[in-house]
């Protein structure tokens, strides 16, 4: 039992339990949401430090692996969770969500994501995924007296359970036909023997289950409704960290144990990537609600990130990892701006509400514009580098069609991102928004600086991603 490998997860879970106990044992008349959020942010930061310090290796009965890839994914997921939690600080208070369970559930969900990133066994994969998803289902429905929120929770839960069922079916087929649950043993079995159709069917089900969690086309139907209905702070969380964790699983499973089936899954991933990019950019044009717009935007982004997996090599994986990093950063920033859209205490999600923001609140408009330009892929912002890397990786692997579709959809996508900017700067000003909370501004500022100044942090991010990709593909623990 090499417990040191999983110290960050254990510490995070213990902190979550402690926060829960403190919250529930405290004075019932008061809301402990603020205290719980602070404690949760502190424990996430602490877990992040521990992740950086955690040793590499495989252990805990062979179900848990810690390598550079796991560390990269965990750091990005934790970062996304912290930003989302900071976004929720003020927006929850104003939306009347005073549950101290809110940050606690986010902490448990993040712990699930960390387990997912470290999975070395099909059981770890499933339990990590369920831990993450369960908490998310509850978070989506947490504003239970509002119809939209309960609808979002129910939709997400029903479709998510369906996806989990498909995933489990696929996992059982993979187990049945390869004879093992351990990734390493599955890889050996696949390389040794002929590939049976049962395994292929299992692989397809696994991919379907994971792609569902990514909300990539054709398993994206739930995304716009859930994003729109869930409280804004939950949407900010949902759009960031869980995608990273689902990508961690997908990359680990496809390039690890199912690496021998690369020919078979490559086409699948390509189709999903193309469909996501096309639908993400086309469907977003007609949206008038900014949260729905962000939903379609995230579907499109998942398509671009999948392009790197389709390439199936080290450059492709590196590109995907960098893309995810930039995505999480600009996504959190964009949601910080969306959360700031409140008028007389009422949350505004209509794009038209942004009209003339450039004159009313230049700082907020500036932030929003940076995130929109970055998502559209305008250089020298963060989004541009992510897109550039995946396109280069795709072209180098001979995936011309994929890169071509990507470029065309980027141009189409730029249209609706820039439309938001146009509304902010060229439309007649609407009524001013309520004063922003400092926490919201802080998130927007941090994300904005990271997005705008990505050139400055480009080298370390790239190096970390490359190291992660190498450690994953070498199959060695290091």
């Amino acid at each position, binding site marked *: 039992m090499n417990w040191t490998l999983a110290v960050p997860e254990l510490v995070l879970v213990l902190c979550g339990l402690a926060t829960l*106990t403190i919250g*529930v044992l405290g004075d*019932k008349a008061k809301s402990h949401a603020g205290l719980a959020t602070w404690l949760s942010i502190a424990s996430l930061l602490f877990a992040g430090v521990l992740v950086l310090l955690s040793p590499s290796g495989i252990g805990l009965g062979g179900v848990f692996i810690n390598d550079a890839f796991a560390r990269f994914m965990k750091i990005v997921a934790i970062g996304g969770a912290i930003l989302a939690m900071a976004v929720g600080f003020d927006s929850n208070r104003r939306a009347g969500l005073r549950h101290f369970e809110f940050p606690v559930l986010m902490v448990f969900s993040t712990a699930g994501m960390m387990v997912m990133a470290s999975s070395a066994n099909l059981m770890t994969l499933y339990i990590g995924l369920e831990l993450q998803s369960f908490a998310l289902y509850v978070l989506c429905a947490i504003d239970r007296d509002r119809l939209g929120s309960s609808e979002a929770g129910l939709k997400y839960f029903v479709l998510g359970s369906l996806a989990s069922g498909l995933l489990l079916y696929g996992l059982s087929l993979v187990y049945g036909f390869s004879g093992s649950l351990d990734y390493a043993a599955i890889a050996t079995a696949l390389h040794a023997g002929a590939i049976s159709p049962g395994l292929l069917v299992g692989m397809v089900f696994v991919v379907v289950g994971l792609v569902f969690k990514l909300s990539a086309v054709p398993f994206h139907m739930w995304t716009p409704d859930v994003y729109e209905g869930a409280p804004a702070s939950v949407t900010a969380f949902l759009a960031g960290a869980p995608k990273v964790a689902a990508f961690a699983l997908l990359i680990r499973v496809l390039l690890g144990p199912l690496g021998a089936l690369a020919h078979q899954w490559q086409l699948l991933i390509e189709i999903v990537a193309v469909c996501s990019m096309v639908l993400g950019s086309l469907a977003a044009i007609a949206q008038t609600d900014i949260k729905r717009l962000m939903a379609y935007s995230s579907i499109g982004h998942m398509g671009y990130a999948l392009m790197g997996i389709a390439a199936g090599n080290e450059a492709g994986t590196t590109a995907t990892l960098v893309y995810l990093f930039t995505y999480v950063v600009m996504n959190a920033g964009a949601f910080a701006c969306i959360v700031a859209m409140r008028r007389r205490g009422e949350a505004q999600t209509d794009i038209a509400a942004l009209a003339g923001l450039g004159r009313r609140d230049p700082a907020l408009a500036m932030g929003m514009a940076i995130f929109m330009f970055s998502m559209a892929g305008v250089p020298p912002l963060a989004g541009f580098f992510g897109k550039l890397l995946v396109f280069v990786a795709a072209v180098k692997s001979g995936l011309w069609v994929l890169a071509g579709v990507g470029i065309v959809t980027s141009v189409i996508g730029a249209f609706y991102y820039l439309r938001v900017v146009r509304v902010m700067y060229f439309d007649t000003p609407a009524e001013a928004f309520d004063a922003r909370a400092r926490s919201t501004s802080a998130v927007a500022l941090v994300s904005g600086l990271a997005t705008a100044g990505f050139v400055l942090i480009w080298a370390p991010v790239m190096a970390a991603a490359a190291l992660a990709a190498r450690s994953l593909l070498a199959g060695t623990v290091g």
Partner: protein
Amino acid sequence: MAPVINDYFPVLVFVVIAFVIALAMVGGSLLAGKQKPYPEKLSAYECGFEAFDDSRRRFDVRFYLVSILFIIFDLEVAFLFPWAVSLSRIGMFGFLSMLGFLGVLTVGFIYEWRKGALEWE
């Protein structure tokens, strides 16, 4: 596989006997009793009155909360069975392992109690 089945032979006999007795009672009353149904006799009534209300009343959501909490503790019990039969072989480590699991559930129990989820009102 044979030994497992053999262990359950008494259960099978038990089930068969239960089934036969139940069948005999229902069948016996069907055969021996006089059946003269008419609409008045078959209609639903409450204490001699016409039914006041639809019998399919909606249940309070609190029943649901109680049963879902029951499921969670039931699953916990499901984990206790294999533990109980293998405890002599897994030693102190296995014992502490279960204590950790129960510890987590105890936190849940404290939460539940303090929240008042176990109180009907």
